[in-house]
C-alpha cells in the first residue's frame, strides 16, 4: 500500500478560514485545559468556587445600583441592611439570621456578603493595576536594557528603585504607607498598590530575559523580523502564562494584605463592611460568640483558597515541564541544574 503524502497547504487552508474551522480550532486549544481540569479535581473545585464568588460579588454590588436607576429604589440582595441595627442581639446562627448577629444586632451574613464585592474588587483591581504597571516597567527593564543607551539608563533606574522597594517586607511597607496616608478605603488601596508593583517588575523582567536570548528569538531577529513583531509574537506570548498564574495567586494575597491593614486599624473606616475590620471588631468574642469572628474569617479563607486552588492548578496546567513529567518515562530530558530563572514562591 503506498504511502499517502498529503499536503496540508492546499485543501485545509480554506477550511481553517471558515467559522466552523475557527470554532473547532478554539476547541482544540481548550481541550488540554478541559482535560486537566477534569483530571485535577482540586483545580476544578477552585474554578467553580471562583465563578460562584465572582458572580455573587457582581450581583451584590450591581443589583442595588441597577434597581436604583431603573426602579427608583435599590433592592438589596442581602437579607438585611448590613448597617441596620436590630433587637436580635448576639444570636447564634439560625434560620432567621444565617450567620448570627453581633451585639448591636447587625446581621453577620449581610455584613459578610456586603464586604465581598469590596474585598474581591480590591484583590482583582489592585493586583491588576500592579500587574499592568509593574509588568510594563519590567518589560522595559528587561527588553531595552543595553548599557549606554537611553533604554539602558531607564532600565537601570527602574531596577534600582525596584530593588529598594523589594527590600521591604510587603506588609510592613503597606502598613507604613497606609499609616501615613491616613485612614480610609482609598488610601489603603493606594498603600497596597504602591507595595505590590515591584514584584511584577521582577517577575516580568526575569521572563523577558529568559525569552530574549532563546534561539527562536535570535533567529527571528536575524531573519529581519521587526522588533515590535518579535515583542508581540514571541516575548509577550511567553509572558502571559507565568503572569496569569502569578496574578491569580496574587489576588488572594492582596485581599489578605488589605484586610490586614484594616485589621490593624488604619484601613477602611468602621462603617464600611470589610472582612478585616469585622475580625478585629469581634476578636475578643472568639470564645463566647465564635460565629462573629469565624464568619468573616471563613469568607476570606474560602475566597483566597478558591483563587489559590485555581491558580495553583493553573500553574500545573500551563507549566510545560510539569505536563511533560506526567507523560515522559524513559527518554532522557533536560540537563539538571538549569534552575528555573523565575523561581517564584
Amino acid at each position, binding site marked *: 500500500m503506498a504511502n499517502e503524502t498529503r499536503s496540508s497547504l492546499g485543501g485545509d487552508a480554506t477550511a481553517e478560514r471558515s467559522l466552523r474551522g475557527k470554532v473547532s480550532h478554539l476547541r482544540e486549544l481548550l481541550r*488540554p485545559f478541559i*482535560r486537566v481540569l477534569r483530571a485535577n479535581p482540586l483545580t476544578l473545585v477552585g474554578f467553580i468556587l471562583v465563578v460562584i464568588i465572582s458572580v455573587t460579588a457582581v450581583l451584590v454590588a450591581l443589583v442595588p445600583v441597577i434597581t436604583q436607576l431603573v426602579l427608583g429604589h435599590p433592592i438589596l440582595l442581602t437579607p438585611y441592611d448590613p448597617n441596620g441595627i436590630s433587637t436580635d442581639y448576639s444570636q447564634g446562627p439560625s434560620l432567621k439570621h444565617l450567620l448570627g448577629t453581633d451585639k448591636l444586632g447587625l446581621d453577620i451574613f449581610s455584613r459578610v456578603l456586603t464586604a465581598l464585592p469590596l474585598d474581591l474588587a480590591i484583590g482583582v483591581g489592585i493586583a491588576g493595576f500592579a500587574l499592568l504597571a509593574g509588568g510594563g516597567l519590567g518589560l522595559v527593564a528587561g527588553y531595552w536594557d543595553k548599557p549606554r543607551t537611553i533604554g539602558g539608563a531607564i532600565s537601570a533606574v527602574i531596577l534600582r528603585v525596584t530593588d529598594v522597594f523589594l527590600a521591604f517586607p510587603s506588609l510592613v511597607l503597606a502598613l507604613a504607607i497606609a499609616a501615613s496616608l491616613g485612614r480610609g478605603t482609598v488610601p489603603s488601596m493606594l498603600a497596597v498598590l504602591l507595595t505590590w508593583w515591584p514584584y511584577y517588575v521582577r517577575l516580568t523582567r526575569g521572563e523577558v530575559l529568559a525569552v530574549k536570548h532563546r534561539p527562536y528569538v535570535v533567529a527571528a531577529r536575524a531573519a529581519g523580523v521587526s522588533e515590535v513583531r518579535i515583542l508581540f509574537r514571541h516575548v509577550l506570548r511567553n509572558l502571559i502564562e507565568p503572569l496569569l498564574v502569578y496574578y491569580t495567586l496574587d489576588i488572594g494575597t492582596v485581599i489578605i494584605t488589605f484586610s490586614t491593614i484594616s485589621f490593624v486599624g488604619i484601613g477602611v473606616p468602621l462603617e464600611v463592611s470589610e472582612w478585616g475590620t469585622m475580625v478585629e471588631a469581634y476578636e475578643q468574642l472568639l470564645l463566647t460568640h465564635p460565629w462573629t469572628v469565624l464568619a468573616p474569617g471563613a469568607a476570606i479563607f474560602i475566597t483566597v483558597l478558591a483563587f489559590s486552588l485555581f491558580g495553583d492548578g493553573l500553574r500545573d496546567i500551563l507549566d510545560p515541564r510539569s505536563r511533560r513529567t*506526567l*507523560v515522559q*518515562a524513559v527518554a*532522557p530530558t533536560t*540537563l*539538571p541544574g538549569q534552575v528555573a530563572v523565575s523561581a517564584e514562591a
Partner: protein
Amino acid sequence: MVEPVLEVQDLSVEYEAGTGTFHALTGVSVRLDPGRVVGIVGETGSGKSTLAHAIPRLLPEPPARIVSGRIAFRGVDVLDLPKWKLPLLRGTGIGMIFQEPINSLNPAYRIFDQVAEAVAVRKLRDAGEAPTLFPAPEPHDYSKGTTVKTGEALLHPIATTLPRRRSRARREALMQDVLDYLKLVRINDPETILDLYPHELSGGMRQRIMIAMALSAKPSLLIADEPTSALDITIQAQVLTLMKELMEEVQTSILFISHDLGIIAEMADEVGVLYAGHLVEFGPVEEVFANPRHPYTKLLLRSVPAQYKEDGPLPALSGSVPSLADVPRGCPFHPRCPLARDACTRDPGPMLEPAKDTSVRTHLSACYYSDEVGRMT
C-alpha cells in the same frame, strides 16, 4: 538446559498519555542465557528503551502499564514482586547503564562517593547485613537456592543500609574496591579523579565510571541502554572496546540496546529486531545480518550507508515509522513492506517462529513470507 538469566515472555506495555494510548511493546519475548550478550536493535520509537526499563521495573507505573506478559530473572517473577522488594532485585541482581553520561551521575556528589556507594551495597549484601534476593555470592552458582524465603527477608531491615558516616575506616575499606573497578574500566591513575565532580570530567570518562559502578555490584544481568549513543565516535570506539574486553573478564550477561546496527554486530551474540513495539526477528547475530528473514531487517541493513556508492540515491525505506499510538493492524510493517499481502493486514499479525528457508533453528522471524526475503531486491 541451563536456566536462563532472563526470560521475557509475551510482554506488552502501554502508556496512557493525554492524547492517546501508546502501545510501546506488544507481545515481546526474549531469552538471555548466562554469559551471553543479546542485542536489541530498533529505530527511535520502536520501544527498545521501554523494554530496557521494564525489565528492572523502572517504568513509572501511572503513565506506563504492563498489560500482560511475564518477566523472569533467574527464576524470580519480576512482575510479581512487591514494590519494597524491588531494590533487592537491582544492584547485585540487575545492573543498568544509561545513555547520557551527563545526566546519569549525580551532579552533587564526588566520584568516590558515588562508586563507593555501589560497592558498599554489594559488600553489605555479600556479608548478609542487607537483604537480597540472591544470597549466592557467585552469580552463576545455581546449586544453592536462588530465592530467599519471605519470612527470612522480612526479618532483615528493609532499607539497604549505607555507610553511616563518611568515616575514615569506611572510606578505606571501600577504597580498594573503588580503585580496582576504576582501573578495570581502564582509567589510569584513578586516585586523581576520586574527589572530582561529574561535570569536571569528559563524557567518555563519565561513561566508564558508570560502567565501573554497574560492574562493581557484580550483577548477573547488565542492561546497557544505548551506552555509546551520546559519545563522540572515537570515544565510542574506546568504550566499546572496553566493554568487549570486560565481557571476557567479567561473567555478566548483557542485554545491549542500540539503534546502531554496526555496534550490535560487534558486541552481541544474538540480536532481536524491534519495530513499532513488536519483535520481528531474532537469532544469532551473524546469521541475522547475513541472511535476514524479515523484510524490515533486510531493508534496514540495506539502508545503512556503508560505502560511498556512486550509483544513485541512498536506498532508504519509504514512509516512516508509525506512531506507537497508531500501530497498523496485523503485521505492523505491512504498510511499508514490498512483500505485503492480504494476510498481513489481518489481526493477529504473524508470530515469531523459526524462519523458513534457513538451516539455523534458532533464527526466528515474524513474517508469513520469510522465505521470500532472501530473494528481495
